[in-house]
Protein backbone atom coordinates (compact mmCIF):
# COMPACT_ATOMS: atom_id res chain seq x y z
CA UNK A 1 0.00 0.00 0.00
CA UNK A 2 2.95 2.23 0.44
CA UNK A 3 4.66 3.73 -2.53
CA UNK A 4 8.36 3.49 -2.94
CA UNK A 5 8.87 7.19 -3.21
CA UNK A 6 12.52 6.88 -4.01
CA UNK A 7 11.70 4.70 -6.98
CA UNK A 8 9.08 7.15 -8.12
CA UNK A 9 11.44 10.06 -7.88
CA UNK A 10 13.99 8.15 -9.88
CA UNK A 11 11.37 7.22 -12.46
CA UNK A 12 10.24 10.81 -12.71
CA UNK A 13 13.76 12.02 -13.18
CA UNK A 14 14.58 9.35 -15.73
CA UNK A 15 11.39 10.13 -17.68
CA UNK A 16 12.46 13.74 -17.76
CA UNK A 17 15.97 12.70 -18.67
CA UNK A 18 14.79 10.73 -21.65
CA UNK A 19 13.34 13.86 -23.19
CA UNK A 20 16.29 16.10 -22.39
CA UNK A 21 19.23 13.77 -22.58
CA UNK A 22 20.28 14.90 -26.04
CA UNK A 23 20.02 18.54 -25.06
CA UNK A 24 22.21 18.12 -22.00
CA UNK A 25 24.73 15.72 -23.47
CA UNK A 26 26.65 18.74 -24.71
CA UNK A 27 28.92 20.69 -22.30
CA UNK A 28 28.21 24.03 -23.97
CA UNK A 29 24.50 23.53 -23.47
CA UNK A 30 25.03 22.51 -19.85
CA UNK A 31 27.02 25.68 -19.30
CA UNK A 32 24.24 27.66 -20.95
CA UNK A 33 21.70 26.13 -18.57
CA UNK A 34 23.92 27.07 -15.63
CA UNK A 35 24.09 30.67 -16.82
CA UNK A 36 20.33 30.85 -17.36
CA UNK A 37 19.88 29.48 -13.85
CA UNK A 38 21.16 32.81 -12.58
CA UNK A 39 18.71 34.79 -14.68
CA UNK A 40 17.50 35.46 -18.19
CA UNK A 41 20.01 36.37 -20.85
CA UNK A 42 20.37 37.36 -24.50
CA UNK A 43 21.80 34.93 -27.03
CA UNK A 44 24.83 37.14 -27.49
CA UNK A 45 25.55 37.12 -23.75
CA UNK A 46 25.14 33.38 -23.64
CA UNK A 47 27.56 32.97 -26.53
CA UNK A 48 30.08 35.12 -24.68
CA UNK A 49 29.63 33.22 -21.41
CA UNK A 50 30.01 29.87 -23.13
CA UNK A 51 32.94 31.03 -25.26
CA UNK A 52 31.32 30.12 -28.52
CA UNK A 53 30.16 31.90 -31.65
CA UNK A 54 26.71 33.42 -31.92
CA UNK A 55 25.87 31.06 -34.77
CA UNK A 56 26.86 28.05 -32.69
CA UNK A 57 24.94 29.36 -29.69
CA UNK A 58 21.91 29.86 -31.88
CA UNK A 59 22.01 26.17 -32.76
CA UNK A 60 22.46 25.18 -29.12
CA UNK A 61 19.54 27.34 -28.06
CA UNK A 62 17.35 25.75 -30.69
CA UNK A 63 18.12 22.34 -29.20
CA UNK A 64 17.46 23.58 -25.66
CA UNK A 65 14.13 25.08 -26.70
CA UNK A 66 13.20 21.82 -28.37
CA UNK A 67 13.91 19.97 -25.14
CA UNK A 68 11.51 22.22 -23.23
CA UNK A 69 14.24 23.38 -20.86
CA UNK A 70 14.43 26.91 -22.21
CA UNK A 71 11.90 29.52 -23.26
CA UNK A 72 12.46 32.55 -25.42
CA UNK A 73 10.78 35.91 -25.36
CA UNK A 74 11.24 39.02 -27.46
CA UNK A 75 12.81 41.84 -25.52
CA UNK A 76 10.56 44.82 -24.94
CA UNK A 77 13.43 47.27 -25.23
CA UNK A 78 14.65 45.88 -28.51
CA UNK A 79 12.08 44.05 -30.60
CA UNK A 80 14.74 42.15 -32.47
CA UNK A 81 16.59 40.78 -29.48
CA UNK A 82 15.55 37.41 -28.14
CA UNK A 83 15.87 36.90 -24.42
CA UNK A 84 16.23 33.36 -23.13
CA UNK A 85 15.24 31.97 -19.77
CA UNK A 86 14.82 28.65 -18.07
CA UNK A 87 11.29 27.43 -18.34
CA UNK A 88 9.41 27.80 -15.09
CA UNK A 89 9.81 24.18 -14.12
CA UNK A 90 10.78 24.60 -10.54
CA UNK A 91 7.94 22.43 -9.39
CA UNK A 92 7.53 20.31 -12.48
CA UNK A 93 9.68 17.45 -11.26
CA UNK A 94 7.81 17.31 -7.97
CA UNK A 95 4.45 17.58 -9.69
CA UNK A 96 5.46 14.82 -12.06
CA UNK A 97 6.22 12.63 -9.07
CA UNK A 98 2.90 13.45 -7.38
CA UNK A 99 1.07 12.63 -10.61
CA UNK A 100 2.78 9.25 -10.60
CA UNK A 101 1.72 8.63 -7.00
CA UNK A 102 -1.86 9.43 -7.95
CA UNK A 103 -1.78 7.20 -11.02
CA UNK A 104 -0.36 4.39 -8.94
CA UNK A 105 -3.13 4.63 -6.33
CA UNK A 106 -5.79 4.83 -9.04
CA UNK A 107 -4.38 1.64 -10.47
CA UNK A 108 -4.35 -0.04 -7.05
CA UNK A 109 -8.00 0.89 -6.48
CA UNK A 110 -8.89 -0.46 -9.92
CA UNK A 111 -7.28 -3.71 -8.88
CA UNK A 112 -9.04 -3.72 -5.52
CA UNK A 113 -12.37 -3.08 -7.22
CA UNK A 114 -11.75 -6.02 -9.56
CA UNK A 115 -10.83 -8.18 -6.57
CA UNK A 116 -14.10 -7.27 -4.81
CA UNK A 117 -15.99 -8.23 -7.96
CA UNK A 118 -14.15 -11.55 -8.19
CA UNK A 119 -14.94 -12.38 -4.57
CA UNK A 120 -18.51 -11.17 -4.69
CA UNK A 121 -20.15 -14.55 -5.10
CA UNK A 122 -17.95 -16.23 -2.50
CA UNK A 123 -19.54 -14.83 0.62
CA UNK A 124 -23.04 -13.52 1.29
CA UNK A 125 -23.27 -9.85 2.09
Amino acid at each position, binding site marked *: *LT*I*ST*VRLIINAIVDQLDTTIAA*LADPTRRRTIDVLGRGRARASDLALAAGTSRAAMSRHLRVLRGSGLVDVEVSTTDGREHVYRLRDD*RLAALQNWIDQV*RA*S*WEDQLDR*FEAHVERRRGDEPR
Partner: protein
Amino acid sequence: MTESVAVSRVVPTDPERTFRLFTEEVGAWYRIDESTVMDHEQTVTLRFEPRVGGRFMDVYDSSTGEGRELGRIQLWEPPHRIQFLDAHDCEVEVSFVAVPHGTRVTIEQRGLGGLPDDVAERVRQWGWHIITPWFAEYVTQRDEET
Protein backbone atom coordinates in the same frame (compact mmCIF):
# COMPACT_ATOMS: atom_id res chain seq x y z
CA MET B 1 0.73 22.85 -5.52
CA THR B 2 -0.85 19.57 -4.56
CA GLU B 3 0.96 17.98 -1.68
CA SER B 4 -1.49 15.23 -0.99
CA VAL B 5 -3.24 12.80 -3.23
CA ALA B 6 -6.68 11.29 -2.69
CA VAL B 7 -8.36 8.73 -4.89
CA SER B 8 -11.60 6.87 -4.30
CA ARG B 9 -13.90 4.17 -5.65
CA VAL B 10 -17.31 2.83 -4.75
CA VAL B 11 -17.41 -0.95 -4.50
CA PRO B 12 -20.64 -2.98 -4.25
CA THR B 13 -20.04 -4.48 -0.79
CA ASP B 14 -20.70 -3.29 2.74
CA PRO B 15 -17.91 -1.64 4.75
CA GLU B 16 -17.27 -4.71 6.93
CA ARG B 17 -16.58 -7.00 4.00
CA THR B 18 -14.81 -4.29 2.03
CA PHE B 19 -12.49 -3.67 4.97
CA ARG B 20 -11.72 -7.40 5.26
CA LEU B 21 -11.06 -7.81 1.55
CA PHE B 22 -8.86 -4.74 1.55
CA THR B 23 -6.73 -5.76 4.52
CA GLU B 24 -6.83 -9.54 4.83
CA GLU B 25 -6.48 -10.13 1.10
CA VAL B 26 -4.14 -7.29 0.26
CA GLY B 27 -1.70 -9.82 -1.18
CA ALA B 28 -4.31 -10.92 -3.71
CA TRP B 29 -5.03 -7.58 -5.30
CA TYR B 30 -2.17 -5.21 -4.59
CA ARG B 31 0.04 -4.59 -7.58
CA ILE B 32 3.59 -5.66 -6.83
CA ASP B 33 6.26 -4.23 -9.05
CA GLU B 34 9.37 -2.12 -8.90
CA SER B 35 7.43 1.07 -8.22
CA THR B 36 5.23 -0.22 -5.38
CA VAL B 37 7.68 -2.17 -3.23
CA MET B 38 11.40 -1.93 -2.68
CA ASP B 39 12.43 -5.29 -4.10
CA HIS B 40 9.61 -6.89 -6.04
CA GLU B 41 11.66 -9.93 -7.01
CA GLN B 42 11.75 -11.03 -3.37
CA THR B 43 8.11 -10.29 -2.65
CA VAL B 44 5.84 -13.29 -2.24
CA THR B 45 2.87 -11.45 -0.71
CA LEU B 46 1.87 -8.51 1.44
CA ARG B 47 0.17 -8.45 4.81
CA PHE B 48 -1.07 -6.09 7.49
CA GLU B 49 -0.52 -6.77 11.17
CA PRO B 50 -4.05 -5.79 12.25
CA ARG B 51 -3.37 -3.43 15.13
CA VAL B 52 -2.03 0.01 15.96
CA GLY B 53 1.74 -0.28 15.98
CA GLY B 54 1.58 -3.26 13.64
CA ARG B 55 3.49 -3.43 10.41
CA PHE B 56 2.48 -3.35 6.80
CA MET B 57 4.80 -6.01 5.49
CA ASP B 58 6.33 -6.80 2.16
CA VAL B 59 6.67 -10.54 2.79
CA TYR B 60 9.79 -12.29 1.46
CA ASP B 61 9.39 -15.53 3.42
CA SER B 62 5.89 -16.95 3.44
CA SER B 63 6.67 -19.42 6.23
CA THR B 64 7.62 -16.70 8.72
CA GLY B 65 5.72 -13.78 7.19
CA GLU B 66 8.87 -11.70 7.48
CA GLY B 67 10.41 -9.45 4.89
CA ARG B 68 10.57 -5.71 4.73
CA GLU B 69 8.43 -3.21 6.59
CA LEU B 70 6.61 -0.89 4.21
CA GLY B 71 4.73 1.04 6.85
CA ARG B 72 3.79 1.31 10.50
CA ILE B 73 0.12 1.26 11.36
CA GLN B 74 -1.12 4.35 13.20
CA LEU B 75 -4.87 3.79 13.08
CA TRP B 76 -6.70 0.49 12.87
CA GLU B 77 -10.43 1.10 13.12
CA PRO B 78 -12.38 -1.64 11.35
CA PRO B 79 -14.48 -1.21 9.33
CA HIS B 80 -14.02 2.55 9.06
CA ARG B 81 -10.40 3.33 8.40
CA ILE B 82 -6.75 2.49 8.69
CA GLN B 83 -3.75 4.75 8.53
CA PHE B 84 -0.09 4.02 8.35
CA LEU B 85 3.15 5.93 8.07
CA ASP B 86 5.31 4.76 5.21
CA ALA B 87 9.08 4.55 5.14
CA HIS B 88 9.32 8.12 3.85
CA ASP B 89 7.07 9.66 6.51
CA CYS B 90 4.06 9.90 4.25
CA GLU B 91 0.77 9.27 6.00
CA VAL B 92 -1.52 6.99 4.06
CA GLU B 93 -5.14 6.87 5.21
CA VAL B 94 -7.68 4.45 3.82
CA SER B 95 -11.31 5.10 4.73
CA PHE B 96 -14.40 2.98 4.16
CA VAL B 97 -17.70 4.86 4.15
CA ALA B 98 -21.09 3.25 3.60
CA VAL B 99 -22.97 4.64 0.61
CA PRO B 100 -26.16 3.35 -1.04
CA HIS B 101 -25.43 -0.12 -2.42
CA GLY B 102 -21.82 -0.18 -1.37
CA THR B 103 -18.79 1.39 0.21
CA ARG B 104 -16.70 4.33 -0.84
CA VAL B 105 -13.03 3.49 -0.43
CA THR B 106 -10.75 6.50 -0.30
CA ILE B 107 -6.98 6.40 -0.19
CA GLU B 108 -5.25 9.60 0.77
CA GLN B 109 -1.50 9.99 0.87
CA ARG B 110 -0.30 13.10 2.67
CA GLY B 111 3.05 14.77 2.98
CA LEU B 112 4.15 14.38 -0.61
CA GLY B 113 5.51 17.90 -0.76
CA GLY B 114 8.13 17.05 1.79
CA LEU B 115 9.34 13.87 0.16
CA PRO B 116 12.04 12.87 -0.08
CA ASP B 117 12.93 15.93 1.97
CA ASP B 118 16.23 16.81 0.40
CA VAL B 119 15.15 16.28 -3.17
CA ALA B 120 11.78 18.01 -2.87
CA GLU B 121 13.34 20.96 -1.14
CA ARG B 122 16.00 21.37 -3.77
CA VAL B 123 13.46 21.11 -6.54
CA ARG B 124 11.23 23.63 -4.82
CA GLN B 125 13.93 26.18 -4.16
CA TRP B 126 16.20 25.94 -7.12
CA GLY B 127 14.67 24.12 -10.02
CA TRP B 128 16.53 23.26 -13.14
CA HIS B 129 19.91 24.70 -12.41
CA ILE B 130 20.13 22.41 -9.40
CA ILE B 131 18.63 19.50 -11.25
CA THR B 132 21.11 19.97 -14.07
CA PRO B 133 23.99 18.29 -12.23
CA TRP B 134 21.80 15.20 -11.90
CA PHE B 135 21.42 15.22 -15.64
CA ALA B 136 25.12 15.76 -16.09
CA GLU B 137 25.88 12.86 -13.78
CA TYR B 138 23.45 10.68 -15.65
CA VAL B 139 24.98 11.68 -18.96
CA THR B 140 28.42 10.85 -17.65
CA GLN B 141 27.26 7.44 -16.48
CA ARG B 142 25.65 6.74 -19.83
CA ASP B 143 28.77 7.83 -21.67
CA GLU B 144 30.86 5.50 -19.53
CA GLU B 145 28.55 2.60 -20.24
CA THR B 146 28.83 2.95 -24.01
